[in-house]
C-alpha cells in the first residue's frame, strides 16, 4: 500500500476531488498548509511595512491506496491541479506497511478502501 501526499493550489481542490471521485478514489484527508516553493509570494503591505509573504496558502491531500491505485491517484491529482504555472505543487508517495479501519478493526488492503 502507498500513502500519497499531494500539495496543491487551494482553488484546484474542487477539481482534484472531482477527478478522484471519477477514479473511484473516495477516501481522502485534506488540510490547510502553507508552502514555500518556487512560486514567489506577493508582498503584503501593512502601514507601509512590506512583508515578503514567502509562505503561500496551499492544500494538502493525504490518500492511502492500494498499489493498483497509485498511478490513478497520481494522475487524478495531476490532472486536477495542473495549470502549468509555478506553484502547481508536488505529489509525494510513501510506503504504507499497515492500515487499520477503526470501526471494524480490519487491516491492510481491506481496510484501506
Amino acid at each position, binding site marked *: 500500500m502507498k500513502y500519497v501526499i499531494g500539495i496543491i*493550489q487551494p*482553488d484546484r481542490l*474542487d477539481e482534484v476531488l472531482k477527478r478522484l471521485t471519477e477514479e473511484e478514489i473516495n477516501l481522502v484527508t485534506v488540510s*490547510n498548509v*502553507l508552502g514555500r516553493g518556487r512560486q514567489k509570494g*506577493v*508582498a*503584503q*503591505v*501593512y502601514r507601509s511595512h512590506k512583508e515578503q*509573504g514567502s*509562505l503561500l*496558502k496551499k492544500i494538502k491531500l493525504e490518500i492511502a491506496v492500494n498499489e493498483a491505485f497509485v498511478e490513478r491517484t497520481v494522475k487524478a491529482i495531476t490532472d486536477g491541479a495542473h495549470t502549468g504555472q509555478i506553484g502547481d505543487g508536488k505529489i509525494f508517495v510513501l510506503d504504507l506497511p499497515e492500515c487499520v479501519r477503526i470501526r471494524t478493526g480490519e487491516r491492510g488492503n481491506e481496510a484501506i478502501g
Partner: protein
Amino acid sequence: MLATWDRSIRPAGEARLVIGVLGALAVLGGTAAVARAGEQAAAAAPAVPVPARVDSGDTAWVLVSAALVMLMTPGLAFFYGGLVRRKNMLSVLMQCLMLLCLISLQWVVLGYSLSFAPGTGLIGGLKWLFLSGVGLEPNADYAATIPHQVFMMFQMMFAVITPALIIGAFAERMKFSSLCVFMLLWATFVYDPVAHWVWGVGGFLRQWGALDFAGGTVVHINAGMTALAAALVLGRRQGYPEGISPPHNLPFAVLGAALLWFGWFGFNAGSALGAGGLAGSAFTVTHIAAAAAGLTWALLDWLKHKKPTTLGMITGAVGGLVSITPASGYVTPAGAICIGIGAGLIPWVAVTYIKAALGYDDALDAFGVHGVGGIWGAIATGLFATKSVNPAGADGLFYGNPVLLWIQIKTVLITVVFSFVVGLVLLKLVQACMGLRVSEHEERVGLDLALHREAAYTVID
C-alpha cells in the same frame, strides 16, 4: 405637504411616467445645465415662511440617527464580508469603507446640492455646491427644528450606504479602481436625481404624492436594480454555483445584521426628523416588521430544508427592514406585521427559486433582498398606509384609497427602469474605459491579496 397627490394624477399618469423616464435619462447628458435651469425655477417659487427654531430634543435625535445610519455602512460591510470567502473578506470591507469616504466627499461637493437644493422636478440646483449656504440654522423646507447641516449629514449617510448595498451583487470579482469610478458616477447620475425626485422640494415624484418615508425607492429599489444590472454585466464568479464555498464567517454576518438592525432605527425613525410621536411610530413598525420577516424566513427554511438557518433568519430580518423602510412613517403595527411577513416570503422566493432559475450570480443577493424587498415595501405602502398614523401621509388601498397604490406602482416602475438602465449604461461605460472585472488569476488568488496586498487573517503567527 405630501398629501397633494389626490389632484395630481389619474388624467395624465401614463404620459407623465414616460416623460419622467425620458427626462430622467436626459439628466445623464446635461446634469449641470438642467440643474442651473432648476435653480432659476426654484428662485421664482419662494419657500413658505415657517418659523424655524432649533429644538434640542429633535436635534439630539437626528444627530444620533445620523450616527446610527453611518454605523450601518460598516454593519453592511460585516454582513456582506462574513458571507464571502476568506480570501475576499477585506475587499468587501475596503469597498464599503472607500464608499464611506468617497461618497461623503461627493455629497459635500455636489451630491447634496443635486439632491436637495431648489431645482427642477428632475434634479436639484447647484446653489448648495460645497455646502455653501448650508448652515446651522434650520431649513424649514426639510426640517424646521434642526440645523440645516444636521439634515444634510443625516441625508449623507443614506447617500453612502445606498451604493454600498450594490457591492453585494459583484462581490469577489470587481476591480477596485473601476468600483470607485463607477460609484462616483452612480451617486451623481442615479442616486442624486432619484433622491431629488422623491424627497427634494419640487421633485416630481414628491409632487405626485408618492410616499417613501425613509428610502424604499431612493435607497433599496435604486441599489437593488443597479445590483441586478451589475450581476448581469459582470457575469458569474468562477465555479458558480457549485464551486463557491459557504460563508467564511457567519458570526460576522450576524454582527453586521445586528448593527444594521440597530442602525435602522436611525434610518427610519430618524426620518421623522424629530423626536415625537411619528418617530416613535416609525421605530415601532420598523422593529416589528424586522421581527416578523426574520421569523417568516426562518419558518420557510424550516419547512423547505427541515431546519431553520441563522443566515436565513438574518436575511429575513434585513428584508423586513428594507420593506418597512418606505412605509415606516405611515403604517400601524398590524400593517408592519403584514409587510414583514411579505418581506420574509417574497425575497425568499426570489432568492430560492428565481435566482436559481435565471442563473445570474447576485453573489450576496443585493437584488434579491434589497431590490425585491424594496419593491414589495413601496407597493405595500400603497396598501397599508393610513392617515391615522401620519396625517401628512395618505390612505392606502386597505384604507379605501386605490389612488395611492397606483402612484406607488408608477413610482416603482420609474425607479426600476431608471436605476436599471442608467446603472447598466454606467457599468458599460466604465467597462469600456477601464474594465470591470479582475483577471482570472486575481479572482483565484482572492481580491484581498491581489488588489490590496493584505490578508484578513494570519494562518500561522
